[in-house]
């Protein structure tokens, strides 16, 4: 394990080295059935209940390719500006592992379905074009659960269980070309790419792209070379980096670690590395020397995939408005600057804000809550905005109540807190927590009189014309009403009485 103390500070590392990154993203497709059989792809079923002879790899069983999965892959390829192969084959990737039912994975090797495309991403107002090397289709493996032991990993486990429900779920792998020239923005660029890809996939309707459920998984390649060097450095591949934040952290850590290795005059080892969510660090996995020989060969149980041109063009014509175009449109509709839109996008809030606007809020209101209070809470709990237990409709409702004067901002934050805590929708929370602004003039007047009575010194100052001192009385009123008073109206009443 790398001694964390030996890491080179990030900015210092970037002052000497140029990073090159690359991303391999696995996406579980949202087809109704598995890649090569008719079993359902539903997440979270009883272990080993969505299985059949084919996805269990029982002797004699044969795969039949899922046409919908091929169509989804073509959709992804087209949206990523790729060429679609007119003829390609599946290949067997051979290796032994208990969660691989056939002890080979049906994948694609030298004949991917989609090649040579790109995806434009925006990092702090700078546009980067990320080249797409390939998009290919394969099947997922089962899931091993290592029981006992401290780490949950296979080493030290007492025994292991395998759930084959996931085995055979169609999986698309999107591989970027090496991304150079991002400089200090490499970690952000990596994150922005995965975010953009995730939004694109969601928009295409091909996957639920839930990183926390593993339907979107990332391997992050990083290398460093001294500024001005002719060749790129040796890369490491950090496996299974499973949140947007982790993507950024993994690149950042690898840059700092590799800089330390290079500074010490050593060579970066080409290897796979494991990312640790808790520490944000990576540790060595398999090195290139130990790399398996997968003995790829064309899958003889399947016929070649030869998508007809007409079909591909039909799919192209059916593509929805893609996120980049949509963002441009929304940016214009909402009157935002490029930087504001990027901020919204990087925060993963475009869809949320859009839905909140559709639910009746103004763009400014929607942005204010999603990028303010809610972003803060997401950050605190280490989750994505979209995973907060609140809907755009809730946020729109809260905005409406603020607009109507039923809530002020402070009360609104309490309502959001209540919704996030599972106390119900905004109206329920307002009711249960008695959060509505006190609009009863009599009750407010009572509170004002009480405040004046309790603070004669302050009241005297106000009477002497120091109206600024009224703030302390307003504060007392707010305290007495637990924040539910309309502060402006309270001020008016105080000044009336003390004039």
């Amino acid at each position, binding site marked *: 394990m790398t001694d964390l103390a030996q890491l080179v500070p990030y900015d210092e590392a970037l002052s000497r080295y140029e990073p090159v990154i690359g991303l391999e993203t696995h996406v579980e497709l949202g087809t109704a059935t598995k890649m090569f059989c008719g079993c359902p792809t539903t997440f979270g079923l009883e272990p080993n209940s969505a299985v059949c*002879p084919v996805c*269990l*790899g*029982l*002797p*004699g*069983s*044969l*795969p*039949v*390719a899922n046409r919908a999965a091929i169509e989804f892959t073509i959709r992804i390829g087209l949206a990523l500006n790729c060429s679609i192969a007119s003829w390609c084959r599946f290949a*067997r990737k*051979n290796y*032994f592992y*208990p969660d691989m*039912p*056939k*002890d*080979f994975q049906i994948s694609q090797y030298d004949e991917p379905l989609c090649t040579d495309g790109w995806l434009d991403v925006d990092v702090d107002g700078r546009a980067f074009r990320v080249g797409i090397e390939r998009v290919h289709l394969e099947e997922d493996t089962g899931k091993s659960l290592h029981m006992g032991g401290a780490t949950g990993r296979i080493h030290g486990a007492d025994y*292991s269980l*395998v759930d084959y429900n996931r085995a055979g779920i169609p999986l698309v792998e999107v591989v970027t070309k090496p991304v150079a020239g991002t400089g200090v923005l490499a970690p952000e660029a990596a994150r922005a790419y995965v975010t953009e890809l995730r939004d694109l996939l969601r928009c295409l309707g091909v996957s639920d792209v839930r990183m926390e459920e593993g339907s979107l998984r990332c391997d992050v390649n990083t290398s460093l070379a001294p500024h001005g060097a002719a060749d790129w450095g040796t890369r490491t591949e950090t496996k299974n980096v499973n949140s947007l934040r982790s993507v950024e952290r993994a690149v950042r850590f690898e840059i700092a670690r590799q800089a330390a290795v290079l500074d010490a005059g050593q060579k970066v080892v080409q290897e796979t590395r494991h990312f640790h969510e808790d520490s944000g660090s990576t540790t060595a996995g398999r090195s290139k020397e130990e790399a398996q*020989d997968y*003995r*790829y*060969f064309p899958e*003889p*149980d*399947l*016929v070649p995939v030869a998508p007809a041109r007409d079909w591909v063009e039909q799919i192209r014509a059916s593509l929805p408005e893609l996120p980049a175009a949509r963002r441009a449109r929304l940016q214009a509709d909402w009157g935002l600057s490029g930087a504001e839109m990027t901020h919204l996008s990087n925060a993963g809030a475009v869809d949320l804000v859009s839905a909140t606007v559709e639910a009746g809020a103004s763009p400014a209101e929607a942005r204010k809550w999603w990028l303010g209070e809610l972003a803060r809470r997401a950050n605190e709990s280490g989750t994505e905005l979209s995973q907060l237990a609140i809907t755009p409709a809730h946020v729109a409702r809260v905005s409406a109540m603020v607009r109507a004067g039923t809530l002020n901002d402070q009360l609104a934050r309490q309502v959001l807190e209540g919704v996030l805590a599972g106390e119900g929708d905004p109206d329920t929370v307002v009711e249960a927590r008695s959060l509505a602004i006190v609009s009863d003039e009599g009750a407010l007047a009572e509170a004002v009189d009480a405040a004046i009575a309790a603070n004669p010194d302050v009241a005297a100052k106000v009477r002497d014309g120091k109206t600024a001192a009224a703030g302390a009385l307003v504060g007392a009123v707010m305290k007495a009403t637990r924040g539910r008073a309309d502060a402006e109206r309270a001020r008016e009443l105080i000044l009336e009485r003390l004039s």
Partner: protein
Amino acid sequence: MAAGGAGMARELTRLTAAEIAAAVAAGDVSAVEVAQAHLDRIVAVDPDVRAFLHVAGIGALAAAEDVDRKRAAGEPLGPLAGVPLALKDVMTTTDMPTTCGSKILDGWRPPYDATVTRRLRDAGVVILGKTNMDEFAMGSSTENSAYGPSHNPWDLTRIPGGSSGGSSAAVAAYEAPLAIGTDTGGSIRQPAAVCGIVGMKPTYGGSSRYGLVAFASSLDTPGPLARTVLDAALLHEVMSGHDPRDSTSVDAPVPPVVAAARHADVSGLRVGVVTEFSGGGYQSGVRARFTEAVELLESLGAKVVEVSCPHFSYALPAYYLIAPSECSSNLARFDAMRFGLRAGDDGTRSADEVMSLTREAGFGAEVKRRIMLGTYALSSGYYDAYYGKAQQVRTLITRDFDAAFEQVDVLVSPTTPTTAFPIGERADDPMAMYLADLFTIPSDLAGNAAISVPCGLAPEDGLPVGLQIMAPALADDRSYRVAAAVEAALQERWGGPLLAQAGELGEQAGGGR
């Protein structure tokens, strides 16, 4: 059939499938009586022949009863309803074990039926049991079976061919009129030839592989074995046809094989003799019978020409790269995790160790040899030189066939270079064993149709010789048409089927003789 007794039962086992089906349909005999007669025959002779790994007496009688019930109810019966059949133990069956002749699958009961199994059941065919085979269909003698070899009914000291040797022996020993085999390098035709019966390798994809435990996916082809060409065609028709569960299954009508088997006419047909197959290495009696068969075809009005297929000489080496490569991958799943044997799992060992111990204990020597060959051939750095090159050779062989079938309608050759060899003779010499498939392998690599039909006995040992008739892909009917003509002409010459010249097997119970 109260008065029939043992004599009648013996007669039932001598009937062809077509005769049994007609008799059952006409109500002359019940399917149960037919099944019982064959089960009795198995009890009597199989201790010597050892064709079966598993006999499903109760299941067979139940299936036969079902046929009788349907007939009684006036429901329509299929063309082979009530006909008993022996199923190679490579096809999955829910009601019987499926071992593939391997210890690694000892006792495995599949949860699903192979498509072929399903089609047979649906057609009212009565499955008597599962037949012995070389382990995972790798071999030409059944000596590679983990359960011991089957014996050739013509001479019990000799091999019945392989890998479908249990199936060929069962049919030749009158234990079943029909059997299913699978052909990867000759595994239907070679056992048919050395047992003096008919065996057909359909066009690749013509019969479904779903539920056929794979040896080499791009080659494996299920097909019929029978005592007559017509019976083989009837079974061919029932078992074949498009299967959506097998992507490589041909989506086209089954060629008119039954009609062809009834149309025994070769006049005007162009027959090619492959120049490259006329070299050395033949047993003299095999050559003699083959030459006679060619002359016979000429006398029946066929035009015989010599055709060169220059790349056929490379078929055997190409096959021994492609088949092991695919098998090394196909057999990876036997890892002790989900089914079959598990060795060494004493709670202290890792999954990797248990996998290794299981594969060490569960696979026989020939299977291990081929897994190693294939693993090597697919390895990074060797792929192009071995697997890649072999695939190129395969393309050239297919082109040789294409060019040949421009000139001729069918190609003929001996099915196998020698008659049945003694058990044990080649057991320690894999190369000698591999040569048994010299003439059959090209059609597996190209995927075209080919049949073996008996063409006489080799004078030096009195054992059967097979004539192979190769036809273009999807022209399976042509093989049947020529085979039927040869069969008819030779039976006229012999005064009956070749098998009638085999000595009677000693029946251990019931005293049938």
